[in-house]
């Protein structure tokens, strides 16, 4: 049996390339990390980096909210921006080390919604 037996398109999109990216979200975080040792490192790294990235983004959002409210001085904006920027670079570096993509860290937390 192939997927050919399952067809549920009612109105097909005109843009096939776009449709190829029509998934709503990344899959949910696996409840269990694969026991294969070669994959375990990447799995743990994904989990840890995701949490670090989540915290970085939460802080960044808070900083942006304060910018919107105008409660930060120019100097504070500069220092915060530099810190977030550096942290992002470090995370990207570690991500590459473990062969992960930016998308791997943007996981869906199920009922909690997406990280980003």
């Amino acid at each position, binding site marked *: 049996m192939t*997927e050919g037996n*399952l067809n549920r398109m*009612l109105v097909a999109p005109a843009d096939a390339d776009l449709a190829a*990216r029509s998934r709503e979200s990344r899959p949910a975080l696996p409840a269990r990390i694969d026991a294969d040792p070669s994959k375990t490192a990447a799995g743990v790294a994904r989990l840890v980096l995701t949490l670090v990235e989540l915290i970085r983004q939460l802080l960044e959002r808070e*900083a942006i909210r304060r910018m919107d409210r105008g409660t930060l001085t120019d100097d504070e*904006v500069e220092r915060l*921006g530099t810190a977030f920027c550096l942290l992002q670079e470090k995370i990207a570096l570690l991500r590459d080390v473990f062969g992960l993509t930016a998308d791997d860290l943007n996981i869906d937390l199920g009922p909690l919604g997406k990280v980003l």
Partner: protein
Amino acid sequence: MSAKFYLYAIAAGDPGTLPDGIGHRPVCPWVRDGVYILVSRLCGDPLQTADQEDLLAHERVVEAAMQAVTVLPFRFGTITDEPALAAFAERYRDRIARRLGQVAGHVEVTLKVLDPGPAGTPAAAPAAAPAMEPQPGLLPGSAYLLLRQAQARREEARRERAGSLVARLEQSLGTWATARHHKLAPSQHVLAAVTHLIPQPALGPWVEAAARLREQHPDLDFLASGPWPPYHFSEVTGDDGGEPEPDAGSAGRR
């Protein structure tokens, strides 16, 4: 240690003969106090990974059962043991019965509006325009945060656009829906996803309305799919799963 079960769906009764399930394992109903759960027994086999064929097998079993009885499909990859299953059936028996009543004779359909992408976004974000161009001479940290601020505003504008679009879609499509689920800007390429639970006879009119919407919005790209088992309307354990009666509304992002 008890045997593991792979779970396909909760059923309103015995669906009769079903196709083979995951890894060509037979599927049978597990019954407790009138709660039917379609399962495959995993005999000492951990089944840690799955492939596309398993995914399709899951769907095949759910859809075959759906031909015979009302079903509440389980999320793909759900594995448990008998004590946990018994506890689940006992604890949620009433909610399961209510959900089954709600989805009986209904199917799930989804209309997605695809985002044309970067070409379409500038028009959508006039509010963000002042902050979009980092002024030359800015220090790098400030430039970075200003850029992120502009992105956040664009994202917010996109969600607002999706919200008003969904309201318009609901005006034409919502007529038939007995329950609905919205996602606003769930991903870069999807502007909005509207999922409806509709009575089976309404499928034709719903599809016609979806096709008309597409003609009315030549600037947008639509993708409609269905009829599906009621995956979006099967929740029985969560908070918003407990009350099937009114329009459960947008359980997407709050």
